């Protein structure tokens, strides 16, 4: 569903991402771990075609992201650390706008349905986003992904700064989307959540993927130990 082949990005000779090859299938959650500057966000920016790769390719649903960027975006949804919405519009209006931009058209009741599916309290839907908490914005982001029926989710530290309950709700939603067949790439610092929700984890350092493993094969403590080992080297 999502694939990178020898994907490399350098800025003035220094490599932000080096030779990344990975594949995420439908029904998988792949968690990218690593310190700040390890190349996690660079990977997501490349997949969104916000920056051009230095070499290598990235495909979504088999389509090259640099060749046909608009087509690949039909299949994906992007949820950054802060889902950025228009403050003067309500959550419902934001959802309506973003789904309209993606080419879909829904009735008001359907849109409200997506928002409640994403866990937004019904009375909040009509309020201006300027009054929303961070967790509520993330839920609108999820609702956009649901409305698009995104096959690929690109998440950049989506739960950092969320309180444990909100983070837990978010993870539950991710699992639901995974079960309905989405391929999910999530950059995160949260080892616990990576082990809990992820099907696979990859550890990145200085732009390289230094380790990759299946979460079912390791325990919490193992993951932490392996992670710290890599960070120390």
């Amino acid at each position, binding site marked *: 569903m999502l694939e990178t082949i020898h994907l490399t990005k350098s800025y003035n000779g220094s490599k932000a991402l080096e030779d990344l090859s990975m594949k995420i299938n439908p029904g998988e959650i792949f968690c990218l771990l690593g310190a700040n500057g390890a190349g996690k966000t660079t990977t997501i*920016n490349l997949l*969104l075609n*916000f920056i051009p790769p230095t070499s290598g390719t990235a495909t979504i649903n088999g389509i090259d992201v640099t060749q046909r960027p*608009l087509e690949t*975006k*039909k299949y*994906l*949804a*992007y949820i*950054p650390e*802060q*889902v*950025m*919405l*228009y403050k*003067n*519009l309500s959550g419902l*209006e934001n959802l309506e*706008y*973003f*789904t*309209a*931009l*993606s*080419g879909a058209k829904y009735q008001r009741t359907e849109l409200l349905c997506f928002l409640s599916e994403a866990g937004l309290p019904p009375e909040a839907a009509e309020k201006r986003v300027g009054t929303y908490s961070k967790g509520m914005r993330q839920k609108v982001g999820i609702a*956009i992904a649901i409305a*698009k029926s995104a096959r690929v989710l*690109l998440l950049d530290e989506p739960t950092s700064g969320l309180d444990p309950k909100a983070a837990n709700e978010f993870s539950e939603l991710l699992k639901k989307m995974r079960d309905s067949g989405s391929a999910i790439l999530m950059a995160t610092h949260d080892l616990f959540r990576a082990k809990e929700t992820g099907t696979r984890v990859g550890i990145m350092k200085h732009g390289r993927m230094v380790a990759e493993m299946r979460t079912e094969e390791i325990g919490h403590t193992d993951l932490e130990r392996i992670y710290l080992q890599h960070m120390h080297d």
Partner: protein
Amino acid sequence: MVTTIARKEMTEMVRDGRFRWTAGIVLALLAGAVLMGWQNYREVSAQHETAQRVTREHWLGQGTKNPHSAAHYGVYAFKPKLPLSLVDQGVDPWVGVSAWLEAHKQNEFKYRPAQDATALQRFGELTGATVLQVLIPLLIVLLTFSAFSGEREQGTLRQVLSVGARKSDLAAGKALGIGGALGTLLIPAIMLGVLALSLASDNGALFASVPRMALMALTYLLYFGALTAVALGVSAFVRSSRLALVTLLGFWIFNSLIAPRAVADIAKAAYPTPSAFDFSKRLDAALQEGADTRNRQLREGLLKKYNVDRVEALPVSFSGVSLQAGEEHGNEVFDRFYSGLWNTFHQQEQVHLYSSVAAPLLAVRSLSMGLAGTDFAQHAHFATAAEEYRRAIQRELNSEITANAAKVTGAYVRGRDLWERIPEFSYEAPGTQWVLARQWPALMLLTLWTALAVLFASVATRTLRTE
């Protein structure tokens, strides 16, 4: 897609208190300008009507006198104001709208409000044209500077592009949204303007103004389109909203404040106009030059022609012939001097026109005045017609003197029957085609500006970065 984006942009703007306040102020100023223009138009038109009637009554009722005294008594001629002049007064306040027509002189124009106004009034006069040419562009800058840079700074640009929105659609939608927001201001103002026009003029004049109104609307549409495109392009191109605002305000100051003054100075330096004092001194000298010789030659020629030895024996009145000869010499001098002066003004206007390559306002100003019937070319057209009329009066009166004055002994006087033979002054303002024939370079330059601005905006949008 584009309309969805436009609708969202408008919703955001309308909900933004800053937009509501600014728009309210601009709308109030625009409405005020239209109302003031309407009042001014009504007043001046009424004054003209009365003055035109009174000048005729005075002419006819001036009693029994020598025709040459009547020629000195003189008449006024008034330049009719077009309904659209309530939007743009153009050069009227400076050059005047009435001419005093009398013997021997091509007079300067009268009724120049700028002459009586204080310096403050001269710069502060609020007209529809000022609002449209200066304030609306400022509003466009304020509405547009953060269109892309603001979304980039807030992170919404990444979100929007991640769902697969096309950059060109975004730009078109934003332009349309700003257009819609301006429309909420301009459409009521235009309706008010048309209402004022219809109240101020009869239906015939209003109907005749339709092509001019359409062209004026096109002019301002192109102007606002160009400015919106420039502002969108800058917003997409530069790094931050602050830089976009500074750049665009710089452009606005250059376009609406610096360029008009600077170009006026450049035009004056390149094609200097004589001072009024100097001009009239040289004119008087040219009129007087060789007067005695001319008079002697005229006398000798006439005596020879009629084969008599003294003026009193002539079958025609020598004073009539000599007056007309004086007029004709004067006319030659006036033609030379005024065509030189007007040529200089025309050259200055050309400097303004071609400077609009740097500042589109200059092309807009020229078009706007031209279509309102208040530019210098239409002033000159009227002045020429008034002068023709003056010359016709002098010819008629002098030929009466020439033919009949010699037959009477004592003073030669005439009455109402002769005054009535002088027709009333009637003047038809040039049509739209006449205006277009002179203004098409301005229209071309403005269109070119708009096309280049749109091209710049589309290139800047295509290379739009997310951070």
